[in-house]
């Protein structure tokens, strides 16, 4: 009798263990730079902090080179059941989109120029925002309402400046000023990267 009870107990443990095995979470797959292209824009996906990923219910995984491309896919396929991942700007760790904090800054370069980067904790997002002027810290919820404007607008502005280049010296000065800003922010990014 005692032996029997022990067997039952053992069986229960095994069943529990098996059940635990079946309940595994959705995991992101590694980026393969040789073959992975962005589902939306067809560009090769670099294995860097800008890569994002969606895993569908059937296990199919799709990668994107920019978080903006992923949101374009989401808005076109809102009825699909999916798990979305982004990566930490500093250590490239995969994080669930809902747990990430985002920083939007028009002078941060991203592959498709959506100028959005992601962080695993709010503190590092905020410190990046503090170091780089023009940053907006956002949560995943706020991201849903983001306009996903690419630096197109910036470009239009630049074009205007270019045309007036030859006409006025003042504009030229503005132009130079902007170029300095640009290189500043660039250096700031670079410093951040070298901390890794």
């Amino acid at each position, binding site marked *: 009798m005692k032996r029997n009870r022990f067997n039952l107990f053992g069986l229960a443990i095994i069943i529990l263990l098996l059940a635990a095995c079946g309940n595994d979470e959705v995991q992101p797959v590694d980026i393969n730079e040789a*073959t992975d292209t962005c589902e939306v824009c*067809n560009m090769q996906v670099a294995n860097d902090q800008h890569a994002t990923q969606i895993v569908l219910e059937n296990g199919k995984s799709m990668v994107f080179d920019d978080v903006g491309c992923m949101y374009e896919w989401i808005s076109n396929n809102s009825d699909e059941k999916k798990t979305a991942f982004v990566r930490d700007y500093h250590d490239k760790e995969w994080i669930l989109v809902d747990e990430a904090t985002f920083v939007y800054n028009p002078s941060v370069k991203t592959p498709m120029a959506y100028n959005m980067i992601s962080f695993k904790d709010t503190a590092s997002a905020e410190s990046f925002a503090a170091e780089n002027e023009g940053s907006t810290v956002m949560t995943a919820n706020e991201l849903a309402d983001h306009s996903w404007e*690419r*630096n*197109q607008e910036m*470009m239009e502005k*630049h074009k205007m400046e270019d045309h007036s280049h030859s006409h006025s010296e003042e504009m030229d000065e503005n132009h130079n000023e902007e*170029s300095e800003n640009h290189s500043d922010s660039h250096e700031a990014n*670079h410093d951040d990267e*070298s901390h890794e």
Partner: protein
Amino acid sequence: MNVLKVILATLLASMVFSPSFFEASSPLQMKIDEAPVGAIVEIDAGEYEETLVISKPITLVGNGEVRIKSCEAEPVIAISGEDVTLKKITVEHCGYEEEDTAIYITGSNHRMEELIIETRRYGVKLDQANGVTIKDSEIIGMKRGNGIDLWQSNQNTFEALRIASVSDGIYLEQSNENLIYKNNLENSRYGMHLMYSNDNVLRDNLSSSNITGTMLMETERTTVHGNAFLANKNSVNAQGLLLYEAYETEVIENEFISNRIGVYIEKAGNNHLESNKIRDNFIGVQMKNASDNKITRNTFVGNVNEAQAIESSKNEVNQNYWDAASKVDVDGNGESEISYTADPYFLTLTTDVPEYQLFFQAPGLILLQNLLKSPPEQLLTDSAPLMEMTMEVEKETSSSLGLWVMSIVMIGASFSLFIIGRKRR
């Protein structure tokens, strides 16, 4: 003891004075600083390990084999201001940091000629540089970082360059009215890659063995004329030319040969493909969500799939030559009375389940394709295919003699088996 002290003192002294000694061994920057505006500075043959900053209009010419090398974080040569000329110099950056760059250029009207640039990351960066000419040079990388990288740089000329083993051969972002002429781009990720850039001209370039020969994304009014896109097929995502959200592109008289996809057009409109030779590709032209494009007078020969279109409508496709089309010309105007239709059935089928590619041209699949016709708005139909090619297409005749010899040997071998077999009985 005294002798020892003297030796120690001299040692110390040499260590103290050594910094000035190092400065003296950086003669190039001193030469540059001393040179008056407009001067021609000749560099004697040899290897120089230093970084240079040039901000005034002077000319630097290598006299013999000159190699300037650095592994520091700064660019090997940083150029700003106006009218700086570099000639006959080899520049090497040996650093592995992500942004390491051999030559950094800003300002305007600089000229780079006969340079050899070796880099682990970026070759040349143009940051708000205008009117710069880079020609007759070579850039070799390690597939990390772009050969030439433009950021907000306009009206530059890149001519007769050979760029190999980099990420993107020539990358343009927010850069307009540049001319890319007679360059050779190979073994890289993308040969030419334009993003958010307008009115650029790509002429007579050769882009071969890249993942994508040329990629135009978010561009307007690009001219792609007389280029050759060859053997861009070494990746499952390879193609000769990719137009993504590109508008009003003129693609004229180019050759697309032996690519996985010759021309791939997605979400793009008002582009014009005329008189191109599209030969021996897996898919000649593929369109996805593309409308209002005009494809005319092209020659499609020897492609596995000539053209496929999904969710694309209102494209004007006519007067192309398709070698697979059944053609009948009744009124003798050189155009066939039977329209030619490319059915996207196979592509739609394989998008979700790539494994179905195994059934390519399987009889069952062709039957299915004929039974379950795709909706007419998804078809790519040439309303009036041409009877004759619009250009000369070289026929591969060289191998036919070999084929004959091989056939005769095989026939002889098989007959000899019969003969030997009979004798044994």
